[in-house]
Structure formats: structure tokens, C-alpha cells
């Protein structure tokens, strides 16, 4: 048993901890051992806070012995390295913040602490969450546990790889244009981007402020609901977090989807799709139908074709302002060899930021400039409204929309790094969700074989704003009827 502890889900672990069948220290040590064994080849972590984790685990054990405990007491959690952790460096995958140790905890980190979770480490990511493969991490790549020569997806690839390889029990990622769902799909785990406003962003290092949202990356759907329970709800420090009652999301896990109205979105299953990938989607639809859902095909969201352009105006525009604070004056990397204050500020940015970050800062600066604002930024906001309306109309007819998460399974390291646009296209099915602010999930639904490698494929489930419950209900019923979530990568 002891050498298998790292394979537990959070809800399984929590039960064992409650029954005192295992201690949090044992469980935490098991996960740390697993990291020590495999992370050299996976590169999922940027920081492992082992001492702190074991201390927290000991505290959790005390609390559990006294009959206390929260939703995640004693459960090891890994967090993407763009969420501020007091006393633990938060790099955002960037040289700029390589030495940055936040003086405060982000909201979700406080929630995790309140729930009794053990923070095990900070996971690798594309620099400032800009990327779809973790290849833009300033420190190292993360390898896909299913095929080490392939990417885990991104930008939350570290968290997704860690969950897939049992280097963590449960994890958090963040999703600006697909950064939770696409790596979840490529690594064969469950990833949910909640509704914009469901989870406080306070303490999440901002990329695209109107798009960013924190969400769970987990081994199964129950864990996803559990984590969503922990992190959801209004926070007065985030004015965009919504003041509304949060349901107990585990109550959605009924297993019953009879009569559920599922719309299959044409644009997320295009004609030129790889046959294997399409097969996964078709099989999943058949399964949902057999479970009693009513499936309607041929639903069209025609404005999807503008989503990529819209996203690559809004996100870089916001990023260009969000990243302006990194000037080397207050914290983080500071270039000192210039002959003036301005030269040092320039040098800080030149050497502190990677190419992809610079590319997006320049894009955003351009689209916000006088003379271009109306043609780009303002136009993008109008398109955004249209995309929202399109979803609103669709959700009048359907409880859940269905599609793929990514057009392809995990691609090879280096395959798309020379062509930024190719890389951007891997998020083409996930971007509209962020633009509209609606919730979306990637759910493991099978594998395709490429060059002798078995690669996971995820299906995407979308629902109207604040209706994560419908997604969880659908996903849970599907998961109960299938066994994809129990598959593990080799090693």
C-alpha cells in the first residue's frame, strides 16, 4: 500500500486520512518520493517545498487526530507557479521573477490552507502563462508523462504532468485561453476552467485580467468538484469575483444524465480533424447517448472563427499593461549595467523577459496605441460581445456543449516553437470559452496512437455561466461508465 499512496485521488486520500489508515506525513512523503523518483525526467516542478510540506502534514495529522479537519486536510496539493505563496518563491516561469518571494498568499492559497491542504510545490509553466507547451518556461521544459519527447501542453503543463504522473494528489492551474484544459487533454487528466468571477484572482499573477481564471487539475471528476468547493466564492479583494451562493459541487455527481441536452459544436469538430481524434469524440458521444443524454449534432457557433484574432488582441493588450510593473526597481530581476535609470529599465526587460512575452507585450502595445485602438481593441471588444451572445443563445437550447479540447494530441517538443501562429492554433477550441467567460472542462476520453505512442485525448464540455454543476454532472456520469481516468502512463 505505502508505495502506491501517491496514486490516490484526493477524495480517496481524505477518507484514508480521516480513518487514520494513513497519516498525512506518510502520504506527503510518498508524493515527495515520487517527485524525487520521476521529476528529473518530467520537469513538472520548479520548486518543491518539501520541509514546509512535511511540517504542514504533521500539523494536519494533529488536527485529524483531534477529529478536526477541512475538505483537504492532510492532502498534498501542487500549485502552478503563477499563484503567490507567502514565503515560497513564485517565478511565473520567468527570469524576471526567479528570486521573487511574495510577502502574501493569494486567495486560493489561503483557501487551500483553510481547507487544511499540504502545499507540496510550485509547478512549471510557460512564462507568464503565455504558451501552450511549457516550452516557454525560462527554466526548463516539462515532458509529457505519456511520451517524454512530447509536450504536456500549456501553460499549466507542470500541474497537468504532475497529476498524470502521480507527482501530486490534486493541483491547481490557471486558464486564460485554454491553459488548464489543453494540458489536461494532452496529459489525460481532468481540468476545469470555472466561470470568470467564480474564483478570486487575488494573488494570481495577471496575464489577461479579463480572461484569467484559476481552476482544478485532478485525477478524476470527484476531485474536481471537491477542489472547486474549496476555491469558489466571493473575495472582497477581487472586485470581479461574483457575490453569489456557491453550491456544493459534489451534489452534481449523481451519475444521472437522462434527458440532458447536449449540443455538438461543429466548429470544435472540424472536417480536417485527425481520424483517431475524431473517433475519440464520436465514441464519447455514443457513450453519453447511451447514458440517456439527448445529443443534437450540427450546432454552429460561426463567430468561433474570429475568436483567435479577438483573443490575440485582448489578451496581449491587457498583458502589455499587466507586465509593465516589472521594471527592476522594486523586486525580481534588475539589470544594473546601464548608464541611466531608463537604460536599466530597458535592460531589465530585455534580459528578464523571454521572446514570447516580448512578442505579446509588443502586440498589446500596438493594438492599444492611438490610431489603432478603434481598429483592433475596440473591434475585438465588439466581437467579444458577439461571441458571448452566440453562447447565450446556444445555452437556451442546450445544457452542455460538446467538442474537442485541442485539434491534436500532444505534439513533439520543438515541433511548434519556430512558428508562434502554429502554437496559437492549438488553443483554437478553448479560446472562445475565456472570451465568453463561461466554464469549460477537459475530460479524458481515450487515446490515439501516433508513432507507436499512446497519447491521451480529452473532450471538452461547456456550460452557461456559473453552471459548472451541469458540466460536473455530465463528466461524472461519463467517467463512471468508462475507465479512462484510471489509465496511467508508463513508469
Amino acid at each position, binding site marked *: 500500500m505505502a508505495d502506491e499512496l501517491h496514486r490516490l485521488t484526493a477524495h480517496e486520500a481524505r477518507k484514508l486520512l480521516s480513518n487514520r489508515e494513513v497519516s498525512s506525513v506518510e502520504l506527503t512523503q510518498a508524493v515527495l518520493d515520487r517527485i524525487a523518483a520521476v521529476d528529473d525526467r518530467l520537469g513538472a516542478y520548479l520548486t518543491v517545498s518539501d520541509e514546509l510540506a512535511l511540517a504542514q502534514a504533521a500539523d494536519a495529522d494533529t488536527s485529524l487526530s483531534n477529529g478536526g479537519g477541512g475538505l483537504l486536510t492532510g492532502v498534498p496539493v501542487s500549485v502552478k507557479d503563477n499563484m503567490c505563496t507567502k514565503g515560497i518563491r513564485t517565478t511565473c516561469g520567468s527570469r524576471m521573477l526567479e528570486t521573487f518571494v*511574495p510577502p502574501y498568499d493569494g486567495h486560493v492559497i489561503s483557501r487551500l490552507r483553510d481547507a487544511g491542504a499540504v502545499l507540496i510545490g510550485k509547478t512549471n509553466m510557460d512564462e507568464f502563462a503565455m504558451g501552450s507547451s511549457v516550452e516557454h518556461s525560462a527554466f526548463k521544459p516539462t515532458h509529457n508523462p505519456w511520451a517524454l519527447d512530447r509536450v504536456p501542453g500549456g501553460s499549466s503543463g507542470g500541474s497537468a504532468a504532475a497529476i498524470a504522473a502521480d507527482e501530486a494528489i490534486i493541483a491547481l492551474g490557471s486558464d486564460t485561453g485554454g491553459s488548464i484544459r489543453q494540458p489536461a487533454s494532452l496529459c489525460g487528466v481532468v481540468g476545469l476552467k470555472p466561470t470568470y468571477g467564480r474564483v478570486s484572482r487575488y494573488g494570481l499573477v495577471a496575464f489577461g485580467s479579463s480572461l484569467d481564471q484559476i481552476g482544478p487539475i485532478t485525477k478524476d471528476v470527484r476531485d474536481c468538484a471537491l477542489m472547486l468547493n474549496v476555491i469558489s466564492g466571493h473575495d472582497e479583494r477581487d472586485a470581479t469575483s461574483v457575490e453569489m451562493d456557491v453550491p456544493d459541487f459534489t451534489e452534481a455527481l449523481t451519475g444521472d444524465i437522462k434527458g440532458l441536452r447536449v449540443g455538438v459544436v461543429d466548429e470544435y469538430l472540424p472536417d480536417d480533424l485527425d481520424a483517431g481524434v475524431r473517433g475519440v469524440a464520436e465514441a464519447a458521444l455514443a457513450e453519453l447517448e447511451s447514458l440517456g443524454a439527448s445529443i443534437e449534432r450540427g450546432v454552429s457557433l460561426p463567430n468561433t472563427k474570429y475568436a483567435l484574432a479577438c483573443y490575440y488582441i485582448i489578451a496581449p493588450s491587457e498583458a502589455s499593461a499587466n507586465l509593465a*510593473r516589472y521594471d527592476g526597481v*522594486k523586486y525580481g530581476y534588475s539589470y544594473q549595467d546601464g548608464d541611466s535609470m531608463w537604460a536599466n529599465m530597458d535592460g531589465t526587460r530585455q534580459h528578464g523577459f523571454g521572446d514570447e512575452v516580448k512578442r505579446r507585450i509588443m502586440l498589446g502595445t500596438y493594438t492599444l496605441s492611438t490610431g489603432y485602438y478603434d481598429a483592433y481593441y475596440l473591434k475585438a471588444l465588439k466581437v467579444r460581445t458577439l461571441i458571448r451572445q452566440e453562447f447565450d443563445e446556444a445555452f437556451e437550447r442546450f445544457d452542455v456543449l460538446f467538442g474537442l479540447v485541442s485539434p491534436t494530441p500532444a505534439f513533439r517538443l520543438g515541433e511548434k516553437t519556430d512558428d508562434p501562429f502554429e502554437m496559437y492554433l492549438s488553443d483554437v477550441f478553448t479560446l472562445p470559452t475565456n472570451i465568453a467567460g463561461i466554464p469549460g472542462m477537459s475530460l479524458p476520453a481515450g487515446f490515439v496512437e501516433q508513432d507507436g505512442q499512446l497519447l491521451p485525448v480529452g473532450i471538452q464540455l461547456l456550460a452557461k455561466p456559473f453552471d459548472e454543476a451541469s458540466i460536473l454532472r455530465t463528466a461524472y456520469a461519463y467517467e463512471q461508465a468508462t475507465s479512462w481516468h484510471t489509465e496511467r502512463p508508463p513508469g
Partner: protein
Amino acid sequence: MTQTAKKYEVVIGIEVHAQLLTKSKMFCSCSKDYYDSEPNTHVCPVCLGMPGVMPVINQQAVEYTVMTGLALNCDIPERAKFDRKNYPYPDLMKGYQISQYDLPLCKDGWLEVDLDGETKRIGVTRVHLEEDTARSTHKAGEGGEGYSLIDVNRSGVPLMEIVSEPDVRSGKEARLYVTKLQQILRYLGVSNANLDEGNMRCEPNVSLRPVGQEAFGSKVELKNLASFKAVENAVQFEIERQTKLLEAGEPVAWETRGWRDDEGITVRQRGKELAEDYRYFPEPDLPPLTISRAYVEDLRSKLPELPDAARARFTNNYGLTPYEANLLTATRARSKFLEEVVAEDAGEKMLARAKATSHWMLGDFARLLNASNLEIEGSKVRPADLRALILLIEEGTISNTGAKHVFEQMFESGKAPGDIVAEEGLTQISAADELGGIIEKVIASNEKPVADYKSGKEEALKFLVGQVMRGTRGRAKPDLVHELLKEQLS
């Protein structure tokens, strides 16, 4: 200047920034009272612009801004929002300032100033809310190398910007406008509005154009104006400087110029030819504001009396001259002082006592306050004390001359006038026999004036009255002295 007035029209618009008297900063819970604090002691992750932080709107600041808008006769639109104004500077913690661009809290208002007896209305384009920056101090090290220190205490302090229409035409009008604005902000209690402390900053834009021309000339923005006098002088200097340039056929540069108060000149600080592009866009971290009509009406109903209304009341109710009313309502503390002195009175008595209070407040009281660099609220003299003094004079217990002495004591010590009179034995001498001896003495030792009076010079009698008053240290009743002297010399 008269030539200028004919040939060129002066066009001035004024931007005023005022820090608001909220408890906390604009977007975090740090105290905004940094004035006497050690540098970088009123800071938190939010106002330091740390990664991951988010702003939360200070509702008190919104309320103060809307109140100001209402006091300035502005429209308060239902929709307002915050925007990011992007520019790099080390004292701007986030690399952008949260401000308001196209949907300010207040717009299209006005205020009126009294210009040589005429009322002039100056338009207020908008009033909006933003955050102050940190403060940079530039220093030189031992080797002469320059370095800068940043105090983040000021970062995020609520800052209200009031932008006028280009309706101002002279340095004097500029001064009157800023003075009036200060007065209104202080009446509202929304800002200390001190130019010299920097919690109110005034930046006039001055340009000239040939009379009849519609297009504006190049405008020059003026900074470093730490007093009302500086506002007037700087603007006037700038008008003359630009006039000379235009007369000489030289262009006026579009630039920012700083006022050097000691030299009485403006000097170029930076050019504006390369207009900065602030790349404004809506602040995604703050949802747009909906300002309900009920909220606006509630604030309107709670607005305190404003200077114009107070001034009218002082002339109408207290029978004071416009000149007196103007000075006495210059601050809320002053007008309150007078109101409290006469609070219990009515009718003729009230009018007389209001007048007497006005004399004291604009005379000896003002002189003493000035000399000790105090405002009325900082003085030891309370309204009840001045009232008591006025009553002592009315009752004839002390003379006016004696009262001056008593008031000085009151100002020094804060003692009640009755106590001072008793301690110093200053009760007015009203019995004729008590005065007899002194009068005889004065007549005996002032032969010449006595002779002058007897030969018909009425003036000389005044001198003799004065001598008697001196002899009694002001305790004699002047009327009685006058009468007794006349009797003696007839």
C-alpha cells in the same frame, strides 16, 4: 498689457488635483495619512504594485468625488468606469495609473467667482477619480552622482482631478478660480486642499490667440505653484512671455514650464511636441460603476452649505457688507465662529453683535492670528469668550480700549474675559469723582492744548481725552471723560 488685451486673447484652462480626506487609500486599506510618516511605512502589496494584486474601489472616495461634482453643478452620469493610463516611471508602481478616461464620475459643471464686483462663471469640464503616484526625491551622492529615492506612502492615495473649461482669461481669474475651488473642497470636508503641502496641485494651461481666431495657440502647462500668489504671478508672467514671443514673430513652444517663485519666472521643464500615448483602456480588474439616481439624490440632500450660500446668508441675515461676508465665510471655521457668537441672539441685538463680532474677527483677531500664523480653529479664543467680551463692552464694564487689551490676553492665555478684567482690575471707571483727580492733573500738565482748546480748537480736546484715558489705563468711559473735561474747561 492693454495693447495685449486688444491684440491677443488669453485662454487658460486649469487642472487641479486634490487628495481626498478618506481614511484609506484608493484601492487598498493602507492609511492615506502619510504626511508626517517615515517613508515606505504606509504600504502593502496592493499599493506597491506586487505581482498578483488587485484594486478594490474606495467607496468613500467615490462619494467625495460625487459630492464635489454636485457642489460644482456637474451632471453625474449613471455609468462611470476606471481605465488604465499607461506610462513608465519608477514612481508609478504598476507601470500604469488607474484613472478615468471617457466616463468620469462628474461632468459639465461650473463655479462662479467674484471678479471686481461682477460674477464670472467658469465651466468645469469634468471631475474624476484616480490614484496618486509614489514620490520621488532626487539626490546627489558624495561623488556628485545622482540617485533617486522613492517613497511609496503616497502611492494609491485617492486623487480627484478637476478640469476647467478654457474660460479663464488672466492670472487674477486663475487665482480666484483656484481659491474658490479650495474653499468649496474645504466646505465639503473632502480635502485639506493645501497648495503648499501638495495635497492640492494646480496646473494652468496658458495659451494666446489673436483676437477673433478660433484655433487655440500652443499651450504651456505650468507647474510648481505652491500658493495662490504663485498661481496669479506665474500665469501673468506666462501671458507676458508669450505675448513678447508672438510680438517678435517667434513661435510659442508646446511645453511644460515650472514656476520659480524666488525669481518670478517660468522655465522649460519638458517639451510636449512628442505627445505621450497613454494607451488608455478599460481597467479589467474593476467592473464599471453604476451610479444610481437615489445615491446621487441622497448625497445632494446631505451636501453642507456651500460658500456662496453662506455668503448670501451673512449679508442677508446678519446685515454684514459683502466685503465682510466674503472674508468671514472664507472658511467654514470662520463662518461657524461668528454664527456661534450670536447664536442666542435675535433682532437688532443680533445685528449689532454680528457687526461687533465682524469687527473683532477682521480687526484685532485677524491681526493676532496672522502674527502667530494661525487659523481661527487653532486659536485659544472660543466663540463664547468673544461673546462675553462683547457683552462686557455693551454693559459698559470695560471700554473699547480696555477691551483691546483684554482680547490680547484672551488670545495669549485662552482665559475668559471676565476673569482677565477681574484679575487686572480693568473695570471701567464711571464715577465722575473717581476721575476728578486725573482730569485736574491732565489739565495742569498740558497748558498748550488747554489754551488751544480755549481758543476754539476742538481738536485739542481729543488729545486731552486721550491723556485721561492713558492715565486710567483705558478704564475710563470716554464719553464721561469728554463731558467732564468740557465742564472743567468752560
